[in-house]
């Protein structure tokens, strides 16, 4: 073998550097034309038993319990093995986005509903096959969280929605035997809780800051506002409906019915137990929290959100979707697992295992989900919900809304300007689709 002489080696080195630089440069630049709309749904999967190894990532309690839960699936499909990896929620977003970037994804994962837009747009998720499940079996709001552009990228697995929590004993003292049904009643309700029943604040509403959009937007949705246009290509925040809703929200702070200071974790629950706060709006996890704080089960109740004119108003819906990755090499079988997890009796069994509320409507027709009064309120509310838009830039725009809500509530900016500012910032950020 002939060894190259020194100058030659140096020359090849230089060529290599130039070549790499050239490749990098030519590879730069965006593809100018992105096709209109998303890709269509993929073809239907075949009939028959699943086989092979299906890798699943799931977070939190879901991740811990799913491994045992899928034993039934494995005994129905003897040739399939399901490998569940539990991922902590805090690390999940980065882990998923790194996996998608590297093309080293599992086959299926639980995906937070607000991440769908971003992962689908990055090309990480596989469109749901034609005929895998029937859209009509699911609540409408949660189904919306899987739809990015015009294409659905997965199936809702479990859901959570926000309802009105209130102290029944205080309400009775204030002369209310039923929950308020509309905006005017809600305002009167809060006033009475304060004036007649001695609560320091009739309602707790979040005065802006992280996550306050989840309480503000339901008022706007109930009033007919929508934050994006139908295909999610443009933000449409600046509407009279949005302004009116924010005006209404702000009035609670102006009239001293809600506290504009920030609360530490636990303060709301202990305040609710002490009768400092008469009511608040939150999700299903709060039943456990308020009971831990010492509120007896006959001292409080939940009710569907008041609408502008009648209950139920439109609430926020969150939860988790199941999606199959574009880089999975076992897609068919992965979808079969997703299909199995969406069966009504599997959904109710899953509720009994860890208490996740089912996304499939018919799972609510039997067992505890059908008989428990509190749960029925959540079930009823789920019929009228909206999911936040499944677009990649949502988290950023949500932060803009949070900041402007705070400015409006604290009087640092008039409501109409705050709403205009939301729109102008959201407009320049773009939906990212």
């Amino acid at each position, binding site marked *: 073998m002939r060894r190259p002489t020194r100058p030659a080696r140096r020359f090849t080195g230089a060529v290599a550097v130039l070549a790499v630089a050239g490749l990098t440069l030519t590879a*730069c630049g965006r593809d100018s034309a992105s096709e209109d709309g998303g890709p269509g749904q993929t073809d239907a999967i075949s009939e028959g038993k699943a086989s092979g190894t299906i890798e699943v990532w799931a977070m939190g309690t879901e991740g811990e319990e799913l491994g045992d839960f899928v034993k039934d699936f494995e005994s129905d499909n003897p040739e399939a093995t399901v490998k569940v990896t539990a991922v902590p929620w805090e690390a999940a977003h980065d882990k998923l*986005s790194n996996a998608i970037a590297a093309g080293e994804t599992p086959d299926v994962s639980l995906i937070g509903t607000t991440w769908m837009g971003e992962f689908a747009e990055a090309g990480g998720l596989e469109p749901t096959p034609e005929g895998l499940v029937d859209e009509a079996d699911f609540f409408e709001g949660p189904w919306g969280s899987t739809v990015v552009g015009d294409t659905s990228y997965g199936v809702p697995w479990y859901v959570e929605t926000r309802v009105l929590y209130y102290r029944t004993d205080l309400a009775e003292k204030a002369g209310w035997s039923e929950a308020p049904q509309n905006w005017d009643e809600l305002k009167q309700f809060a006033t009475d809780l304060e004036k007649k029943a001695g609560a320091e604040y009739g309602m707790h509403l979040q005065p802006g800051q992280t996550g306050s959009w989840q309480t503000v937007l339901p008022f706007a949705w109930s009033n007919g506002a929508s934050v994006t246009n139908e295909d999610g290509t443009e933000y449409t925040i600046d509407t009279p409906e949005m302004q009116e809703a924010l005006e209404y929200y702000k009035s609670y702070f102006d009239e001293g019915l809600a506290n504009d200071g920030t609360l530490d974790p636990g303060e709301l629950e202990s305040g609710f137990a002490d009768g400092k706060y008469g009511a608040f709006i939150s999700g299903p996890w709060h039943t456990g929290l308020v009971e831990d704080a010492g509120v007896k089960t006959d001292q409080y109740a939940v009710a569907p959100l008041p609408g502008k004119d009648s209950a139920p108003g439109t609430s926020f819906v969150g939860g988790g979707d199941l999606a199959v990755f574009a880089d999975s090499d076992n897609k068919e079988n992965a979808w079969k697992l997703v299909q199995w997890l969406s069966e009504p009796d599997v959904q109710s069994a899953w509720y009994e295992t860890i208490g996740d509320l089912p996304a499939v409507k018919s799972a609510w027709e039997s067992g505890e989900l059908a008989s428990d009064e509190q749960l029925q309120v959540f079930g009823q509310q789920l019929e009228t919900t909206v999911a936040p838009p499944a677009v990649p830039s949502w988290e*950023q725009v949500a932060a803009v809304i949070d900041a402007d809500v705070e400015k409006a509530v604290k009087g640092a900016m008039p409501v109409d300007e705050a709403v205009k500012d939301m729109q102008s910032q959201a407009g320049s950020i773009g939906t990212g689709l």
Partner: protein
Amino acid sequence: MRKQQARAAWILAAPFLVLFLVFTAGPVLASLGMSFTDIKRTDIRTPFAVGFIGFDNYAQLLGDPLFRKVMVNTGLYVVLGVPLTMGLALAVAVMLNRIERLKGLFRVGYYLPVVTSIVAVSVVWKFLLRPEGGLINEALGLVGLPQPEWLDNPDLALPALVVMAAWRNLGSLMIIFLAGLQTIPDEVKEAAQVDGARGWDVFRRITLPMLKPTLLFGAVITSIGYLQFFEEAFVMTKGGPLDATRSVTFFTYDQFGYGNYGLAASASYLLFIAVVVLTYVQFKIFGEKD
């Protein structure tokens, strides 16, 4: 022989060089490159198929009212925090340099906050600053002073964080100043006293000038630290109220979170430039001239 030595040197240096190139120089250059593109999180699968947009990110940042606000916040934090911390640290150091008894106890006491986790410190201070039942407001109430909502008031939140930062960081400066004070020979001070200089004159005309290099060092490291403040606000106020405690680093963190990698990289480089400029100015003002 010399060639062999050179080769040995390269071999010994290689592990460091490789690590440095891969984990330091590489990412630094990549982030600098990113700051001139419109790369977003949705581009992770095709990182080279992004638009080259020159200085657009930088222009966008400088035109963004929120970024301007966080620049002002960060500037205020430095302008209020650095003199306060240095003044307190110098006072404590001079005091500790004088006393004979319990020196060790005080030194440990003042240094303890430095070795305590910033997150733990922030959580405890959050309790101290609570509007109702917080130790500070209880104390103010006892002497009949108003009890403000420290962290919910946009005008007070940043100053409250500055005071906490001064308390936390004065320990390390104190140690440095103490070492500086001990290098000043007693003979010089004694000579000055023989010439009739009194305590304050000695401090102003002898101690301070001789401490100048130490003070410069203290100012530079404190400013660099304060320009990057983040954890205190992250734990105590989440950047609020009304963005009054959001810093440039916090803004950058948010932008990375939103997936705007290009914009976030530009924000970090603007902060880097600020660090360089401020350090240069400090060297110009306090350095050299003898």
